[in-house]
């Protein structure tokens, strides 16, 4: 702590950004909040990217740690107490100033504050709370805030902090409790899932309370239709984590297969009401012998397939058990999971674009959920042709094997697994350009052992 007092702000920012960068979540999405005319800031539900760093990832929030001091020893983490790195801590006021000044210059959409564990989980959580309190009530910041809940912190502190934040997250870190025990001995499933459950319950209660309150306001305004304005000006109850909670799992540090990872994610969506699960391809920063060395670089293609599958769960009404099984526990690395599923269910195809219902359209490779909605709207007025589908945004080179328009397929083609599979794999867009072109991935495509 002695040293950090003399450190310049820019040096602290450098250290505490560097230490925060492996957290993959950086979205500012999930809440719409207009400005209030009195303070600085508003929020847009789709989120806004302000820049892109040289790894191609979106920069939306000022993503920093409060401190990189830590009493824990998670072996995958640079900040663990056995590691010899330069340590630094911000003061709450420094974080507020950086956030306000970056925000008004439109560098950022808000703050993402995480932290190593200084002295104790409670001590750290309280510092985070103090910072958010200042930011909201002294600096009147009305923009987006994503904050980490510290595992093991007092539920009261977690709750108070949640009323100041838009999103909260607690990282699950690893898919199974054995792995967690091995690599992060001071953490446990219990200290992670308990606050996650608490946040979930509180979000629910808060929603009901707001509903009740709105109903109250409504009755009163109706009762006073001619009446004074004052009765309608009912102060809004504070909102608790309105953009929901998220979590992150590290992929490739431990031996879990895709089936295990996706089943955990599905459980989190269904039982904990999470908004997002993030997957972070493991980067070996500590050179710890307990951990894989990954000379080919982080498993980016595997991470990409997991994100695609995650989309299928959240937007396309798929279940993990439809995509993977004990016998077939990993995704085909060469195909996106939806194409892969379609190939193994050719009995469901082809589907007629002008008749199929929404959920059926969603399952066609090359038709995204937006295109599916546009198809439903557009076909009310006219029978759609392949040319129309193209305008709507359907990727025909993928979809053509699986659809008919007015009873006809686009070309004469065989509805046969090997044939379609060969054609789909021949399409280079199966592996996204950013991964094909990333110099670190060239070897690992064929070395991941997932095929």
């Amino acid at each position, binding site marked *: 702590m002695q040293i950090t007092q003399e450190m310049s702000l820019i040096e602290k920012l450098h250290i505490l950004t560097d230490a925060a960068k492996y957290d993959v979540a950086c979205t500012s999405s999930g809440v719409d909040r207009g400005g209030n005319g009195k303070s600085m800031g508003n929020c847009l539900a789709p989120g806004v990217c302000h820049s892109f760093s040289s*790894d191609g*990832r979106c920069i939306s929030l000022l993503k920093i740690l409060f401190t990189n001091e830590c009493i824990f020893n998670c072996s995958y983490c640079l900040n663990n107490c056995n590691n010899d790195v330069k340590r630094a801590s911000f003061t709450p006021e420094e974080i507020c100033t*950086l956030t306000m000044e970056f925000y008004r210059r439109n560098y950022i959409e808000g703050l993402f504050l995480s932290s190593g564990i200084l002295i104790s989980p409670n001590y750290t959580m309280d510092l985070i709370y103090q910072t958010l309190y200042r930011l909201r009530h002294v600096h009147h910041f009305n923009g987006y805030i994503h904050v980490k809940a510290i595992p093991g912190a007092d539920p009261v502190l977690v709750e108070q902090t949640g009323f100041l934040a838009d999103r909260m997250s607690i990282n699950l870190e690893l898919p199974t409790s054995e792995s967690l025990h091995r690599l992060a001995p001071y953490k446990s499933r219990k200290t992670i899932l308990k606050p996650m459950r608490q946040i979930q319950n509180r979000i629910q209660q808060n929603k009901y309370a707001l509903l009740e309150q709105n109903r109250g306001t409504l009755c009163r305004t109706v009762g006073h239709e001619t009446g004074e304005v004052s009765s309608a000006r009912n102060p809004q109850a504070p909102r608790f984590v309105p953009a929901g909670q998220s979590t992150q799992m590290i992929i490739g540090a431990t031996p879990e297969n895709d089936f295990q990872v996706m089943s955990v994610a599905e459980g989190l969506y269904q039982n904990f009401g999470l908004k997002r699960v993030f997957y972070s391809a493991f980067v070996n920063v500590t050179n710890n012998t307990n951990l894989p060395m990954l000379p080919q670089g982080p498993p980016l293609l595997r991470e990409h397939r997991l994100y695609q599958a995650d989309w299928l769960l959240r937007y396309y009404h798929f279940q993990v058990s439809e995509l993977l099984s004990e016998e077939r526990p990993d995704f085909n690395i060469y195909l996106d999971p939806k194409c892969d599923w379609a190939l193994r269910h050719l009995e469901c195809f082809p589907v007629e674009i002008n008749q199929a219902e929404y959920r059926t359209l969603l399952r066609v490779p090359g038709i995204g959920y937006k295109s599916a909605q546009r198809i439903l709207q557009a076909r009310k007025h006219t029978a759609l042709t392949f040319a129309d589908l193209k305008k709507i945004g359907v990727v025909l080179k993928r979809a053509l094997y699986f659809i008919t328009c007015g009873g006809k397929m686009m070309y004469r083609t065989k509805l046969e697994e090997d044939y379609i599979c060969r054609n789909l794999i021949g399409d280079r867009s199966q592996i996204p350009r950013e991964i094909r072109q990333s110099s670190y991935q060239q070897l690992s495509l064929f070395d991941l052992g997932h095929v």
Partner: protein
Amino acid sequence: MHILICEHSIDGIFSGIYEAYARRYGHRNTELALSCNLNSYQLFCEYEEIPVAEAKSRKVSNTLRARFGSEVYSHLCEAISAYESPSARRRSIDKAEAVYKTVVLGLSLADGSKILDQLGNPYVNRVFQLSRSTFNEAHHLLGFLRFSELENGILFARIHPKNDVLALLADHFTDRLPLENFIIYDQVRKIAAVHKSGSNYMLAEVPNGADDYAKHYSDQELEYRRLWLAFFHSIAVEARKNLHLQGQNLPKRFRPDMVEFHSDSSDHPASLKL
């Protein structure tokens, strides 16, 4: 066929639509065309120039807002504000004509707010594509725009958008930064949105450019730029370095207006010493 020639602006096209209705030639016998699109005249067509008439334009916009709702209305305006390259323009339906025929179709529906769902209709589809391109650029700029603090505390941003997105941006920042004095300057169109703390913004033409304005930064400005650059460079994960992906997500044309991509000035990262 009667071809009504109108100016390339919201008022210009709305005036054209007003006249197309007022003249009662029948919509099937009437077309709108932008003056900038007319290279050759066709036989058997009568051409008329329609002057911009604000009062008529306002009547049209009131009707459209009432019948279509504000969302569809703003899509129509975004479509009109959209930029098209000359070659794209030659290949597709005239923009004024697409808006006009979309309006005609929409007003024939019981519920005009559904008009943009008819993507099978070529005019509607064209309006949809145009508005999407404006919307996308505006959404990019909500994030990529950079303010610098001038000596007098005013925040100043310079943009070079393809589409006419200034009003969309000014709306957003008026809501976000209500207490700041700021100027957003569209250097392509030489128009500025000027916002005074606590009030709404105004659009002003700046024919002589804004360079005189934006010369002197505040003392703090360079300090915060240095901090931002330190953050920008530290946040990248070296093991995932991928300039192609960066280029795909952040097209080069936006970069000259973003401080983190300036390479010539004294605040370049290379000159940053920790």
